[in-house]
């Protein structure tokens, strides 16, 4: 929580925390950490600490937008597939299978390489990679709900399909998707950082943790350039994972009280 808090602050008001301009050379190049440069300077003499702080602004919102977009795209496709069934369902799910059949980063790499490197394209690539998981989840929820006794009972009462979707299905799917999304933020952060590490994500000079690690890898002796952003990624992902677990645990507890086993 604390980490998230810090990351959030960094995201919103980086200029309060950061000591230097993240984009400009603030001192000599490749200086180890000192009281002036808390985490040293990089190969262009920029303050690593300040860049680290500003980078929170790049990674986390991007990961969130990946997750939200995938959730919307995947959720809609899943509900449509699950509800209409038949050919539409089969087609959509085969496409999802295809996307599932290869590692996220390789597909994302191919997509960004083809579309050109850059933030928007990285996000698009990751959404292309991640929607199927949401679609599958949404679909299975809709399908099992459709066959449940409470939907049957609703149908017996003479309620229309649209009303049933609106009142019985959507709230159910939405809450489960959000739980899943909370867990997926961590994955999205790792993927984004990975793409940026490869030079396919956030473009310089915008500070981003993954590309900062890449800078550090290129300037190997200067361990501080890679270490701190690496740690930042790690801690942020841990924080999101904890948050995701918390959300899921909360829902699970609620569900086990209700007496369902998701």
């Amino acid at each position: 929580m604390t980490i998230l808090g810090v990351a959030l602050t960094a995201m919103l008001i980086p200029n309060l925390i950061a000591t230097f301009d993240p984009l400009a050379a603030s001192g000599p190049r490749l200086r180890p950490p000192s009281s002036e440069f808390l985490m040293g300077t990089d190969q262009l003499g920029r303050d690593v600490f300040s860049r680290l702080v500003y980078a929170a602004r790049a990674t986390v919102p991007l990961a969130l937008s990946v997750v939200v977009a995938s959730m919307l795209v995947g959720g809609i496709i899943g509900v449509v597939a699950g509800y209409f069934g038949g050919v539409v369902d089969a087609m959509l799910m085969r496409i999802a299978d295809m996307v599932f059949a290869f590692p996220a980063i390789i597909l994302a790499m191919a997509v960004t390489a083809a579309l050109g490197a850059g933030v928007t394209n990285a996000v698009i690539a990751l959404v292309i990679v991640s929607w199927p998981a949401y679609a599958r989840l949404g679909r299975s929820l809709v399908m099992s709900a459709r066959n449940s006794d409470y939907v049957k009972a609703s149908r017996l009462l003479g309620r229309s399909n649209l009303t049933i979707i609106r009142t019985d299905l959507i709230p159910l799917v939405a809450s489960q998707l959000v739980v899943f999304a909370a867990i997926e933020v961590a994955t999205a952060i790792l993927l984004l950082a990975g793409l940026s590490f490869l030079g396919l994500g956030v473009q310089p000079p915008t500070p981003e943790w993954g590309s900062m690690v890449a800078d550090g890898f290129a300037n190997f002796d200067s361990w501080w350039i890679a270490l701190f952003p690496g740690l930042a990624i790690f801690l942020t992902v841990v924080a999101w994972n904890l948050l995701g677990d918390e959300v899921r645990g909360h829902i699970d507890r609620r569900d086990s009280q209700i007496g369902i086993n998701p």
Partner: protein
Amino acid sequence: MTDVLEVQDVVVEYRVGEQRVRAVDGVTISVRSGEILGVIGESGCGKSSLARAIVGLNDIAAGQILFSGQSVAFGRGQRPRSLRPLQMVFQDPSASLNYRRRVGSQLADGIKANRPMGRVETSAEVLRLLEVVGLPYSFADRYPHQLSGGQRQRVAIARTLASAPDFIVADEPISGLDASAQASIAGLFRRLADQHGIGIIFISHDLAVVRELADRIAVMYLGQLVEIGQSEQVGLAPEHPYSQALLGAVPLPDGSGELPTELAGEVPNPANPPGGCRFHPRCPVVESLCATTPMKLTAATSTGHLVRCIHVSEIYPRRSA
């Protein structure tokens, strides 16, 4: 009164892998308004399958089901208004209530769909329904998980009543309840039939309860009706050996230490039922012809009492004890 519900030679089949399971095999029954028909039988004999078929939720492979003269099938679309007076109480109340919605709003569903009224009136009607099934008003704001099994069962019944039905198919509506709760729900059904003229099919596996409540009783074994007749007749002096076994299998808590009567053999696989009379491998009074001759329902002692047994036919007449 005329029969509101007519079930004729209905067959329900499920496909399990490459096998076909005939869960309901040629059942014919009819029920009048204001009448309670009890259906009993062991687990897996096809009671729920029959119930779902009656309200149109299961496709039927053969036969026909008519409600007020109209076929009950309604496909995938919205259920036609004319069928809506035919309602069902599901076997598992936890599964038949949406666990993410409050009791009150689920009760209102039935009202809105069938007899729309103003907001205030709807809420008043919801409270009245709760009262009918013996629940406090405060339950309208609860979620299903905040209720006990018995309370959930009552909510499910109330939801069914919300659409003001003429006919209710109740699938084991009291099996989850303790003895005293069973009595009060049974009383509710009795009142619905007597005071509102609602026809009811009441499914249970407990012969003793059904005997108290129903006007007539139907006994099922492996998808078939084996006996149907007046409640006193079937409940106290059944003709079919299976009905008799059901009656004798329940040990009495009288302190006598008497053992219940055992029924030989194992319950057969419904996917592969025995030929001839379905009950013959376990029947204590089996005859050689039973294994080969399929039995028909035959009129027995009193009028309207039908039994599917060789001993009721002319071939091997036998008087029951």
